[in-house]
């Protein structure tokens, strides 16, 4: 298992009777980049929090989370806190709330570098400046003295990425890192993240509902629906030849220049219905109430995962399409 940066097996995350993640398995090779896609409430973020042992009070996990040769799901809190940040780190969705507003950003990154290495203050400051330079942040020395509210959203997110990279982790989890940024900044931030991760050979788990980002950055993709992975595979394959009706629906509901009519006469295709609440998940396939191909079999039996696909009626697309 040493060739994977993260290996999740049959992960269940629940709070009492509520099961939000129901049997998720995936594996990210060392230096690999995986995308995790799904609607709000499909269990993406809980999966990520479970991987870091940071679930909110009341939530518990079952299954195995293998990382760096140990099962994180059965580590004590103090054991976890020693490895957190050193081997796994995370980039949060909202860069404004992810930095402490009353402390200078330099202090936040330098104290982290010093905590996880035996670098002195001057050395840690140099490392922080080098990281900032790599993040294309202008005037790193001044930037270190700034408070978060003095910086723009893009700058803050770059600093978060710099902090995430500071201890040379094996895996970075990016939870919708660009959702809170505007489109032009998104691209720059993603490119910086992409380059930095590639240079260091760090594995990346990109959680998003933005399919173009996945297509641009990731090697593999897993599509989550109602706590399960319904389809997984290499990005090129899944996006060009989706087999699960849900993946198909997601891909169809992406706006492109073709289906946007400026006079407003055309509508963006959407998947009818919404994600069912966790309390009343039907037996059988969770997507079945919204699926146009659903049959009686889908209503009665939960589809097994075969070749990364969990569907009784996979769509077969012609190769040339």
């Amino acid at each position, binding site marked *: 298992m040493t060739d994977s940066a993260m290996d999740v097996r049959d992960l269940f995350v629940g709070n009492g009777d509520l099961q939000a993640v129901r049997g998720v398995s995936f594996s990210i090779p060392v230096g690999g980049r995986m995308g995790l896609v799904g609607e709000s409430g499909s269990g993406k973020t809980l999966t990520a929090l479970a991987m*870091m042992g*940071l679930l909110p*009070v009341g939530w518990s996990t079952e299954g195995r989370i293998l990382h760096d040769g140990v099962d994180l799901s059965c580590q004590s809190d103090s054991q976890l*806190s*020693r*490895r*957190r*940040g*050193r081997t*796994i*780190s*995370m980039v*949060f*969705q*909202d860069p404004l*709330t*992810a*930095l*402490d*507003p*009353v*402390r200078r950003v330099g202090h936040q990154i330098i104290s*982290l570098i010093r*905590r*996880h290495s035996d670098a002195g203050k001057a050395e840690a400051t140099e490392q922080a400046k080098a990281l900032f330079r790599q993040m294309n942040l202008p005037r790193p020395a001044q930037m270190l003295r700034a408070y978060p*509210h*003095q910086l723009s959203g893009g700058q803050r997110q770059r600093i*978060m990425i710099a*902090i995430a990279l500071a*201890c040379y982790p094996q895996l970075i989890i990016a939870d919708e890192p660009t959702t809170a940024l505007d489109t032009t900044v998104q691209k720059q931030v993603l490119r910086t993240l992409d380059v930095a991760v590639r240079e260091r050979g760090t594995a990346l788990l990109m959680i998003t509902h933005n399919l173009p980002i996945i297509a641009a950055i990731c090697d593999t993709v897993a599509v989550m629906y109602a706590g399960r992975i319904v389809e997984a595979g290499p990005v090129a394959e899944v996006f060009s030849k989706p087999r699960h009706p849900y993946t198909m629906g997601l891909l169809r509901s992406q706006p492109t220049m073709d289906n946007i009519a400026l006079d407003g006469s055309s509508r963006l295709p959407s998947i009818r219905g919404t994600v069912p609440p966790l309390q009343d998940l039907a037996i059988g396939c969770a997507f079945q109430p919204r699926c146009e191909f659903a049959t009686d079999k889908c209503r009665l039996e939960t589809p097994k995962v075969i070749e990364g696909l969990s569907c009784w009626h996979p769509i077969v697309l012609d190769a040339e399409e």
Partner: protein
Amino acid sequence: MRLNVSLIIGAILTFCAISIAVVSTFWLPYNPNLPNIPNRLLAAGSAEHWLGTDVLGRDIISQLMVGARTSIVVGAGGATISLVLGAIMGLIAAASGKIVDETISRVADIMLSIPGMVTALVLAATLGSGALTTIFALTAFFTPSFTRVARSAALSVLQEDFITAAQLYGRGRIFILARHVFPNIAGVLIVQFTLYFAAGILTEAGLSYLGVGVTRPGISWGLMLSEAQNQVGVSSPLAMWPGLSIVIVVLGLNLMGDGLRDVLDPKLSKSIL
């Protein structure tokens, strides 16, 4: 930063009061407890006693100066101890599990439901009156309020992503409370401190007026008020001086608190830049 008039006026008034209290520790025009019967009940404006003398001929300015010291020591003492205890209890309540949180919160509720004056009267009756007893009573009275404020502010800070980030990077619980949560709620607590400083001065004056606070040879503005009470009609300004002093200092502290609230409000400070 924009000019905040109430902060400036409040800070000036508070600074003056504190300066007078400091001066009173090493220099006084007269001994405030020494009777001088020939000079009794001098009117304000006399050459040797600018604000006159009381019924025993004791100098009013000297008494007011010592009174300022008493007010500030008792008010600041009570508010500071309450601030420290309240912040610690509030942080513990916010960061702990349900049982600890509920216990601390319910105890605070019970303590808040007991009127402060009653607590002070009971304490004065059992421990004897004096400045220390008054500080003790104020602490018992104010700590629950500080606990509540600190707890609710800490709860909202604990929701933020940077707390999760700190946990993720391996920070311990105490480090997070001391270095991330406390600095973020300090502004709210400072504002609360100035307001309770003022409330402490008022309470101290009330207790001394009732005779359960500071007594001679100690001097407090409340004590001066109660002594001046018998001379109302004979020499009415005697009651006016300590009353005016209380108004000025309490007004100063409240103005400063309001000003600080505006300046330290995180929402406002974010929009400045």
